[in-house]
């Protein structure tokens, strides 16, 4: 019986090996074929709606400054994951920049920029309805 259980385990490994090798060869090929941007954004590709938005935010907001991600609940772009999770993704991607409610930088996903008053100056906007604004207080 001992030998039988070991034989079953050996057989299970042997039968699974080809698929396992095939799977990680495919994974390696897919990872290798990714563009630099797709690889860098990775999990955020389903979330951020526009890759340029995160790069624009990272390039324009100084590392020691703060930002706020404002998301309109009816933001039409992106995926189902965008509205609930885009703020989380920016928090990961933009560190060491800190999120803050009263931040001078607004990353706006279909939000109402007027609520920030006339001091909000749009520095970048995309066709997807994403805007980066700087607030002068």
């Amino acid at each position: 019986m001992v030998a039988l259980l070991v034989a079953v385990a050996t057989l299970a490994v042997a039968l699974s090996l080809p698929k396992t090798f095939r799977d990680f060869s495919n994974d390696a090929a897919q990872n290798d074929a990714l563009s630099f941007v797709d690889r860098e954004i990775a999990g955020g590709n389903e979330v951020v709606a526009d890759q340029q938005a995160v790069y624009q935010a990272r390039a324009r907001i100084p590392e020691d400054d703060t930002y706020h991600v404002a998301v309109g609940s009816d933001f039409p772009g992106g995926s189902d994951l965008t509205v609930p999770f885009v703020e989380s993704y920016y928090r990961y991607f933009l560190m060491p920049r800190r999120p803050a409610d009263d931040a001078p930088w607004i990353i706006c996903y279909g939000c109402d920029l007027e609520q920030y008053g006339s001091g909000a100056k749009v520095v970048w906007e995309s066709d997807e309805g994403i805007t980066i604004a700087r607030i002068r207080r």
Partner: protein
Amino acid sequence: MTAHALAGLVLLNVLFLVSGAGLLWFLRGWETWVDLARLAGLAYLAGVATVGSAWVLLLILGVPFSLWLVVAVPATVGLIGLIGGRSLGRQRPALGSIGARRGLVVTALGIAAAGLLLEGFFRSARLSGLEAWDAWSFWIPKAKAIYFFGGLDEQFFTTLPGSSYPPLVPVLDAAAFQLMGGVDVVTLHVQFWLVGVGFIWALAGLLSERAPGWMVWPFVLLPLVASRIGERLSIPEADLLLDYFFVLASVLVVLWIVDGARWRLVLATILLCGMVLTKREGLLLGALLLAAALVASARQWRTTWPALGVSAAVVVVVAAPWRIWYVTHDVAGEGPAEGFVQRDNLEWLWPSVRRALDVLWDTGYWNLIVPLAVGALILAALARVAVLVVFFGTLLVFLTLGGIWATWVFSKPWITGELGGNFIIRFMGSVALLCVAATPLLLSAVWRAATADDEREEVRGRVALAAAIVVVPLLAYPLLTLIGGLPRFPTRGECVHVATRDADDLEVVYGRLDDPVAAEELLGKLTRTGFVGNDLAPDNCGRWKVSYDAIATLAEGMALAEAAHKAGFDARVEHER
């Protein structure tokens, strides 16, 4: 993604190995270098647990996390091990011999197969983007916070999801960032792959003390081909690291009960400390492990229970500071929000039982690991292999009950088997890996009881054959892969394709800039100088490219670039692809 980052990771992991090897020299000594090689994986993971726990405790005390700390802690642990070992009169290891037994060839086959699989996992890990949800949602942000701000930054550590989760994994990530020279979340996958390699090595090394190679290797290989384990080997999350610590601690504890070697319990205690600082489930797993040990060692309770009590006390002392930190920072606790016993939700209890057992028996997740372990347990029970059966049987029952309870109070059973929504799939990973370790131990005990297996017969020429079996495929696979081209280290420069021949995708590129404002300024300056019709657009590498693409031939592009040079601009003819 750079060779420098990979070299930094190698250094970090050598530090873990050296510190763990020093520690084991202190605890048990190294009789031979062969002995050290066999247990190198265990030494490495002991180093990860010891050094990681020390980093966590120092961070909680407010010591800034710096490159100096990253290097000093493992060096100190290793040094303490060496000095402690010397003071105990430990001898330098002798060379030792791997022998030329019949089982050597089987062991060589096992090492070769595991090595090939791990090489394959390395290929896919090296260029992985950070796809795992929890990784970018909170594990890596916590690591970045430690790296950028030098400690447990209050803003991030109190507001990120999973705020009460202990920070051992983020600390390990932050240490990797320090030695990689930056936040390289792509290469970080290799760190987790290395920990996986360490675990496979540690498990095989420990099991081979008690079981012959033909019993050990099929079960050591099984998790690598089980989808829920093998495919997640390099994901930068805490689940598998917790499982590794738990499984090795379990094996060490049961072997300590069997042979009384005290170093095993000390090492298990170190791994238990790592567990309670890795994930909140570590508290539950640790408690269940110690409870199973109490049951299995009840016959020798006068000697074993006090030792287990000391072990538990040490773990509590190590676990406490993190819990004090988050309580004093107003972070919600690790327990279920609606209480540990939810009498109002008793109707969810039976569905929770179903859910837990369904997951445990799902061969799609764990291949045949669990049914084979149950078979081994029954065989061992019939053969009256008392301690091993009682320990593993009790622990598996406790773990299953723990998984049912956790599903009942945390996840709610109506939530489907989706990983993100249901705690039980992650939790049962520890059960499956425990089964991997338990089965060869149980089977070998049955085998020893039934046969007088003598593997000591020396067979001439076996060492050379075994060496060839290991070395040839492990070298051949990467060499065959390299025939397709040298390894790539992608950088932002990969978007630059300098033109050397005529093509229909030529363009003159005036610059690729990280700053879009600077790119706009360059565009304006070009226009004012008379170079009109240019585009400003993002390239595929996260930079902004200023270019002119109305180029018919390479010669035309070269002429334009030459004119731009004379006007003081950088310019180059490239392919647009």
